[in-house]
């Protein structure tokens, strides 16, 4: 079918549409129907775009209580208004679906080049429904969209899929998002890889696999129109200036990338280790820290339009893993495939990181589910025979790497671990649930929140489950005094702070969207003003700084409403018992935990700040009306 080019499509009734591409592309793989919908500004503006648009579509278009791996689920790729605008650090997209891991909203962000390419092809979002009767790939070339046979691609790893599909299409400049063997086999924490970046968490790769969709190739040649060009350029200049003034973005972060957080969290005593039993006691910064990792870096890379280039290409040049190359491992993967599994040998972490990317596995969940099995083995809850003979003890990196393969291909014990720790612990039984570290089914990321309590509260309350990026507490982790400084061990005040962290990050980083790193390291204090300026000058639409924040709050409420509809309550906003009952054993956060009483106190304060019912955790009618969510309020409370 024929579509109009972006510039022409942006002109509607003589009124140019700026910033946004102006269209949403719908593809139903069951009927093979492809169609577009004009973007309704009244629909997107209150939630900005990106994650906000994706979650709004998910709430409105996916029926309650469906199986996330059924054709009824929708897989939504949503870029934001800033993508492709010329602002730096904004090539980001939200991938949204009902998560097969949690049953809640699944939302994961990825960077690279694919997001900008999709925008340049003329779309603010791509919504995929149904299930193809056999493997297919989607090819979007500006206004030409086709569904194509992918039998020949099925079974390939993610990097091979991208390379070979580009050759087949004779499109070396195409950008490709795809799944690997893990997504094909519906591993519940399979990811989607574009270039060497990942929409990593919540099992979105399994959703893509359930649709028999191997890959999406995009080539876009359009551009984004700006309403007030000079004003926008001034805002971009200000953004660059602020980034240059950052005390850490250049050169430290640019040089070391996210692994510098290994040293940092180790010093704070919050680098989790050995399934969170050895935080502070096992922190091998001399072999896994950012400085040690930089010895393996051969070059730096960045996403489209990024001057920071925090991506590190690392290569192992000797030893049993010689020849392995990866972009990473990032901090989180160093945690999950390093300290979490008791491994301090960086070449093994590099190899494991690469294999997870190739197979299309989320590195965080993969490491956590393996650490879970390691603890069960060491406690004698499961036997080596049940692990197919693997001596999967903490620190045994050879066994870890073999288990990664087994998970990806659902072989033997890997077939159980491929379900994630929540389901695996239920299958295994024998009291193993106590050692399954997850919130709402999502495995814990790499900050031991017993020593950073607002950060922990965000793990407990985030609509995605245990997710470090939904309400990252820069105040506690990095001492950034925005909006104010806090004592990371304190409980008082953390509910209100958590709400602010979640709302500002949702609006700025998930919806506009802006990469979290310049936000954390230089722009946080002025982010609402800056986003307001960029958004207004780009789109020509009014959005004052306080309205940016309000949009973030609105998105968090819509996501909460989706989860409420799926049966989530206050009882689900909780921690694994280990966080509440066991203290951090050593290091600078020794003795810290978050007791049940402390959690309840923080939750009460959080719900009060949010305007949610304290008993149920459900948004009140008054809050929904205040946010202008009239239809949503009517769904829950009946017509006003």
């Amino acid at each position: 079918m024929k579509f109009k080019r972006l510039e022409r499509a942006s002109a509607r009734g003589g009124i140019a549409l700026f910033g946004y591409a102006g269209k949403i592309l719908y593809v139903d793989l069951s009927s093979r129907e492809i169609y577009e919908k004009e973007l309704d500004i009244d629909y997107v503006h209150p939630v900005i775009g990106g994650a906000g648009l994706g979650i709004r579509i998910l709430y409105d278009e996916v029926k309650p209580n469906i199986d996330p791996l059924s054709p009824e689920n929708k897989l939504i790729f949503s870029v934001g208004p800033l993508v492709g605008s010329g602002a730096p650090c904004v090539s980001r997209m939200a991938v949204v679906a009902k998560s097969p891991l949690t049953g809640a909203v699944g939302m994961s962000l990825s960077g690279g080049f694919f997001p900008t390419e999709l925008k340049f092809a003329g779309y603010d979002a791509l919504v995929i429904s149904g299930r193809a009767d056999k493997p297919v790939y989607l090819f979007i070339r500006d206004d030409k969209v086709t569904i194509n046979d992918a039998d020949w691609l099925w079974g390939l790893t993610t990097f091979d899929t991208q390379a070979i599909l580009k050759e087949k299409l004779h499109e070396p400049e195409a950008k490709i998002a795809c799944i690997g063997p893990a997504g094909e086999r519906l591993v519940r924490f399979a990811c989607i890889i574009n270039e060497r970046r990942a929409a990593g968490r919540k099992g979105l790769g399994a959703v893509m696999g359930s649709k028999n969709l191997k890959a999406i190739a995009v080539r876009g040649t359009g551009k984004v129109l700006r309403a007030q060009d000079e004003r926008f350029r001034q805002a971009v200049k200000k953004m660059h200036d602020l980034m240059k003034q950052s005390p850490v973005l250049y050169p430290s972060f640019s040089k070391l990338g996210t692994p510098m957080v290994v040293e940092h969290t180790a010093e704070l005593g919050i680098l989790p280790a050995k399934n969170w039993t050895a935080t502070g006691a096992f922190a091998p910064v001399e072999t896994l820290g950012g400085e040690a990792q930089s010895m393996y870096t051969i070059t730096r890379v960045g996403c489209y339009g990024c001057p920071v280039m925090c991506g590190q290409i690392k290569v192992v040049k000797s030893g049993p893993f010689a020849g392995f190359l990866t972009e990473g491992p990032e901090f989180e993967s160093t945690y999950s495939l390093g300290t979490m599994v008791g491994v301090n040998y960086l070449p093994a972490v590099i190899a494991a990181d690469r294999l997870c990317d190739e197979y299309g596995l989320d590195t965080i969940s993969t490491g956590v589910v393996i650490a879970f099995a390691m603890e069960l083995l060491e406690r004698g809850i499961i036997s080596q025979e049940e692990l197919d003979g693997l001596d999967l003890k903490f620190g045994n990196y050879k066994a870890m790497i073999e288990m990664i393969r087994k998970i990806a291909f659902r072989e033997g014990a890997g077939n159980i671990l491929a379900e994630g720790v929540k389901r695996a612990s239920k299958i295994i039984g024998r009291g193993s649930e106590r050692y399954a570290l997850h919130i709402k089914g999502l495995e814990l990321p790499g900050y031991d929140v017993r020593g950073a309590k607002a950060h922990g509260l965000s793990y407990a309350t985030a609509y995605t489950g245990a997710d470090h990026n939904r309400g990252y507490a820069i105040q506690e982790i990095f001492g950034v005094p925005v909006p104010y400084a806090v004592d990371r061990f304190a409980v008082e005040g953390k509910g209100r702070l958590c709400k602010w962290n979640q709302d500002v990050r949702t609006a700025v980083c998930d919806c506009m969207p802006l990469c979290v790193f310049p936000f954390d390291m230089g722009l946080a204090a002025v982010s609402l003003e800056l986003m307001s300026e960029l958004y207004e000058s780009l789109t020509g639409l009014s959005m004052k700084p306080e309205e940016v924040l309000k949009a973030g709050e609105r998105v968090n409420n819509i996501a909460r409403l989706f989860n409420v509809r799926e049966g989530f309550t206050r009882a689900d906003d909780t921690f694994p018992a280990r966080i509440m009952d066991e203290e951090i054993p050593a290091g600078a956060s020794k003795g810290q935990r978050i007791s049940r009483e402390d959690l309840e106190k923080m939750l009460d304060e959080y719900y009060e700040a949010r305007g949610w019912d304290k008993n149920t955790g459900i948004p009140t009618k008054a809050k929904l009306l205040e946010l202008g969510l009239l239809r949503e309020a009517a769904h829950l409370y009946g017509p006003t």
Partner: protein
Amino acid sequence: MGQLSFGSFKMKVKVRALFQVKELLGTSELIVNLNDGSTIEDLLRLLESRYGENFRNMVYNPLEGVKPTIMILVNGRQIQFIGGIKTRLAEGDTVSLIPPAGGG
């Protein structure tokens, strides 16, 4: 591990440093001997006298105080919540000097 002495005092505290501060001190860990009852300010003044202008620019300047981007922890607690630079040190304390970091 470096060793820095101050007079004949017996109280030992451990100073840990990351990244640029580590480069400045030339080590990731120092044992510093202080007078009983010494504070963070006493420690910083001592380090400032030892490491000079680079320390003043990066960590602490007696005229301006602690650089706002530097996190100082005593046994894991940020000093602004336990007494600021007047925080008293005790035998065996660990003081962390952490330059800005980010990512993850």
